[in-house]
């Protein structure tokens, strides 16, 4: 399909292209694609009219929400459509049906819905209602935005005052990845690129341990949500402070998951656990940018013998993280992402996933910690937000993505896995081990 220049709304930035390469990889596995999901558990049926009105207003202010992803030459663009797709869908549990089952099946269907990326909507809003259970579910295609962006979109929908809603998306900064890249002269970019490449080569010296050793073909993505009590959450935060200090809550979760996986499958081959994670370039509490990915990648890697010693592991992860930031390695991946965006999706996906030496998968699991969400519980139109959770698709291997957030003082863990490579039973076992690690009850 050829598109006209005037129909182009936006070019994908290097971080968007990174997520698009992963979309291609997930689709190659036969799954839906690189979708992220954000769910709100509501107290009652919300004010549907207000919600619909704000979604419509949002799509008018940010037209990329209804765009089509198109390729011109090697690059990808968001382009206008003749028939913009609907963004808001309602699903009501039929009388006499099991509500919990209805909710689970509907979310499962939305997450696993397969559609060509050119025709799929960049973002969709689903309201699931029934006599007692109500969920507002956002599903977005990853090149459209990141988790912090989804949080901002939700805040937009939760802002009753129209004047305040106009502040969202301001100041218009464009892509923060490009802004950051623009701060470097060309020779500095090359220096960073080499630094990033050397760092990845160093990571690749150790073969990554995979959580699930299986040759099975993934059939569908599934997820398990585990919500800790306020007291448990407080204990986890205390443990994190004690082991990694004020600067490393995410590292504490990563370390605990490495240890839980090691305890679950001590015989899995490989030399180290390696987890990619992203840090967001947006300022905390900023109201812009709303769309697009504004992240840069980091890695946490720990050799097996270090993982087996809890004290040693957290000291190692903390030191590794400090070293990465001290050497500006965190920004070193930006020129790599820029260079990668010129490759074909297949070539880029291969580079992103495969270890240079062994050609095996570099990631032991995907990880994202959204942190503490500050959306007031009473701000959703016509309903109280009781709880939230995230979900996402992931490649196979590693077939496991772990997401975390804290809302209303409760730590929520989301285990996303591909069946039959893994199963809900295996994930339950993993969670029991993870919980003991998080609470500091495992040695």
């Amino acid at each position, binding site marked *: 399909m050829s598109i006209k220049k005037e129909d182009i709304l936006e070019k994908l930035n290097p971080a968007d292209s990174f997520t698009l390469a992963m979309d291609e990889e997930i689709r190659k596995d036969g799954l839906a694609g690189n979708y992220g999901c954000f769910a709100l558990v509501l107290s009652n049926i919300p004010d549907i009219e207000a919600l619909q009105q704000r979604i419509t207003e949002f799509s008018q202010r940010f037209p990329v929400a209804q765009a089509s992803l198109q390729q011109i030459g090697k690059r990808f663009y968001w382009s206008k459509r003749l028939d913009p797709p609907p963004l808001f869908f309602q699903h009501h549990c039929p009388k006499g049906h099991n509500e919990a089952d209805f909710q689970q099946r509907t979310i499962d269907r939305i997450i696993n819905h397969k559609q060509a990326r050119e025709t799929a909507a960049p973002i969709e809003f689903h309201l699931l209602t029934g006599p007692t259970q109500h969920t507002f579910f956002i599903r977005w295609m990853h090149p459209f935005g990141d988790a912090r962006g989804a949080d901002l979109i939700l805040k937009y929908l939760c802002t009753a005052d129209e004047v305040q809603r106009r502040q969202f998306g301001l100041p218009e900064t464009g892509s923060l990845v490009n802004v950051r890249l623009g701060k470097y002269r060309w020779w500095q970019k090359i220096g960073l690129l080499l630094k990033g490449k050397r760092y990845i080569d160093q990571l690749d010296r150790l073969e990554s341990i995979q959580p699930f050793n299986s040759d099975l073909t993934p059939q569908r993505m599934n997820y398990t949500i585990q919500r800790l009590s306020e007291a448990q959450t407080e204990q986890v935060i205390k443990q994190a402070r004690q082991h990694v200090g004020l*600067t*490393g809550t995410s590292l504490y979760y990563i370390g605990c998951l490495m240890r839980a996986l090691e305890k679950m499958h001590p015989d899995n081959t490989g030399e180290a656990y390696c987890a990619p994670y992203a840090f967001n370039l947006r*300022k*905390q*509490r900023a109201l812009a940018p709303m769309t697009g990915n504004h992240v840069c990648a980091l890695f946490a890697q720990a050799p097996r013998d270090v993982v087996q010693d809890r004290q040693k592991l957290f000291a190692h992860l903390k030191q590794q993280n400090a070293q990465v930031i001290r050497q500006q390695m965190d920004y070193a991946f930006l020129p790599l992402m820029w260079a990668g965006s010129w490759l074909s999706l297949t070539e880029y996906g291969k580079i992103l996933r495969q270890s240079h030496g062994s050609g095996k998968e570099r990631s032991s699991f995907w990880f994202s910690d959204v*942190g503490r969400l500050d959306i007031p519980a009473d701000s959703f139109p016509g309903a109280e937000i009781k709880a939230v959770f995230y979900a996402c698709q992931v490649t196979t291997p590693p077939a496991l993505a772990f997401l975390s957030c804290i809302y209303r003082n409760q730590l929520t863990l989301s285990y996303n896995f591909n069946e039959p490579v893994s199963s809900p039973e295996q994930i339950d076992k993993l969670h029991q081990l993870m919980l003991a690690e998080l609470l500091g009850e495992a040695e």
Partner: protein
Amino acid sequence: MKKKLRDFIFQELVFIADPAQFSDDDDLLEAGLDSMGIMRLIMFIENEYGVTLPDTEIEPDNVQSFNALERWILRHQNG
């Protein structure tokens, strides 16, 4: 010193609609300074002021306001 710290935090780490209204005693952690931000801030301070801030002292009391940060840095500059 506080001006440089304010510029760095408000330009790089935390969005405040009106930074002028944010006092030197206001709570930076409440304002959104997170763990990654604290790490970056410490690297900035170490580069800018030539001090080494011990890991063991990275605690809320030392990073929660501009005044607390300044006291922390000065303690190490003078020591």
